[in-house]
């Protein structure tokens, strides 16, 4: 077991305090950087897509995991990012400028939504964002002169600072770069007063208000940051899809994002990363499950959504902390080896938290 002796004030806010964490992060970094040398193009593209979902997951995590505002319409921001970026590119705007405009636009729309959402709470917010998602999807479909409507929109090829990146590994490194920037930025955000006020609002709006936090403004900020990050993910996603259709950014995509952060573990950046890994592996795992089940069950139409639903239910019921919670337990077990007890992580008995009185 390792003890932390703090000898400087900065130890309190250090990203990686323990040696084990440093080694693990270094290992993952080396693996990610070395991936193009080892993997075939297909798997590399999948890995790049996973990194895009890491970014999107972190975007939603900032809002739902850290600020406690449920959003069921986040695929809308993914779509706004993807469409804005592609349309700007097709008008000849360079990548670097276009991505900044995309960030700003998604952020502004997010703040506008946050402005109206800051008055709602609980599930009113969930439904309002759900409706927002459906509406934005309809707008993509109907505004055919700009978005190509249901016919779809071709995404211009990837070209950064005049260098065209056509190889899979080049795109992969671009994704990796943005993912690292986002992970670093968001981790940093939660060391700052702004980020801390997000957490305060999640834990109790009333106490946050009493401590002088401007709750409305925090929600607007959170929506803005979250939407901007998700918009960035959308812009990168556009290059993976190469062809945009409104259906891609529908309710199902929003649910997928939500599933990611819930299964990964709410309230942690690492949880979003775990969630993205799960969502990327899930289709492969499902098709594998289909093969090992007896054909009379495995080949029935509709088995996939059934397994999908079952996995979510099982995770939420048996491991409410998500994969991150499980990972904590395993780590705790190893670090304190003979001392782990079953009751180490038993939670307090909880009662209904009412929303009606606020």
């Amino acid at each position, binding site marked *: 077991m390792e003890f932390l002796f703090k000898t400087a004030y900065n130890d309190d806010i250090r990203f990686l305090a323990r040696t084990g964490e440093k080694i693990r992060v270094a290992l993952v970094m080396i693996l990610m950087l070395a991936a193009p040398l080892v993997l075939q193009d297909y798997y590399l593209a999948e890995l790049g897509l996973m990194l895009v979902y890491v970014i999107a997951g972190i975007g939603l995590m900032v809002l739902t995991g850290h600020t406690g505002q449920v959003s069921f319409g986040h695929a809308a921001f993914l779509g706004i990012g993807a469409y804005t970026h592609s349309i700007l590119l097709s008008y000849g705007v360079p990548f670097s400028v276009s991505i900044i405009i995309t960030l700003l636009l998604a952020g502004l729309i997010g703040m506008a939504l946050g402005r109206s959402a800051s008055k709602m709470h609980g599930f009113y917010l969930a439904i309002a964002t759900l409706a927002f998602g459906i509406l934005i999807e309809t707008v993509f479909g109907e505004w055919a002169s700009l978005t190509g409507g249901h016919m779809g929109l071709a995404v211009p090829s990837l070209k950064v600072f005049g260098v065209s990146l056509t190889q899979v590994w080049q795109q992969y490194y671009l994704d990796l770069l943005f993912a690292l920037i986002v992970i670093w930025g968001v981790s940093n955000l939660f060391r700052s007063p702004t980020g801390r006020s997000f957490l305060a609002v999640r834990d109790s709006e009333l106490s946050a208000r009493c401590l002088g936090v401007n709750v409305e403004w925090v929600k607007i900020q959170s929506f803005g940051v979250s939407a901007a990050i998700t918009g960035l993910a959308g812009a990168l996603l556009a290059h993976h899809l190469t062809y945009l259709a409104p259906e891609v950014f529908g309710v199902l995509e929003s649910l997928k994002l939500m599933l990611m952060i819930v299964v990964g573990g709410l309230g942690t950046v690492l949880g979003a990363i775990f969630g993205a890994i799960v969502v990327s592996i899930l289709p492969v795992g499902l098709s594998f499950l289909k093969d090992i089940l007896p054909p009379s069950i495995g080949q029935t139409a509709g088995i996939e959504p059934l397994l999908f639903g079952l996995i979510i239910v099982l995770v*939420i019921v048996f491991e409410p902390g998500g994969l991150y919670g499980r990972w904590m337990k395993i780590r705790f077990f190893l670090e304190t080896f003979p001392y782990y007890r079953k009751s180490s992580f038993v939670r307090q008995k909880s009662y209904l938290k009412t929303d009606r009185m606020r």
Partner: protein
Amino acid sequence: MTGIAQGCAYGLIALGFVLIYKATEVVNFAHGEFMMLGAFAVLAFSEALGWGFWPAFVLGCLSIAVVGYLVDAQIMRRIIGESQASIFILTVAFGFIFRALAGMIFGWNTRSLDTPFDGKLAIGNLVEISYDRLSIIVATVIFVAAIYLFFSRTRYGVAMQAASQNQLAAYYMGIPVKRLVSMTWAIGAFIAAAAGALLAPVTQIDTTIGLLGIKALAGAIVGGFGSIPGALLGCILIGVIEPFADYYLPGIKGVSAYVVMLVVLFVRPEGLIVQTYQKKV
């Protein structure tokens, strides 16, 4: 009149939503799927037993009520106190499971159900309404009256109200809160199943009719989620507005319910009839 009937159908579904929400503060996104399962169950019973519509209707609705009870007693009870996001996702996942199961058991094709409601009722030249739509309106009135009487006159109903207002206090008074909450789920599921069976002649039976549930939710929010009359009013409003909006604004066909809801939410964030109060410290 068609609009009102459609609104009443939404209202019937919303009734279950509101009941479950008031009892547990869980918004059951799988409620539309209860309705779909109900329609399928009634269809299955009427085909298997051949006793006609009514016995199958009762049996089908009761079986869905049992499903609702079990969902609460076995699953929802375990995750009380979790973050709302997890609970929403859980009910959405249930929606997926129910839809997949219904598809696997009853097939993915659209089916139709024979009901005793054929023909039309005409009152003068002004009003003309088919019996299947009329049956929905009548059923809504009956269910609302029954629910009202149940909650205001019976021991169980009053106990449920107490549990909904303050669970802990209800425990101390010796009310079996857990069982009552599961009962509420059963009632909600029963009403949803009844709505599904009555809607069957209008919409046909399909695994996707559960999506009506989301529109019902929109309607309930327009009216204010915490109150049954408000939710019903909102649903009827949505049902009446929808055909007009589809006709005059074809661009937003199918999503006008959500537009109305968003507008209402932006203007009055807590629905037309407010139910939340500021907490006192």
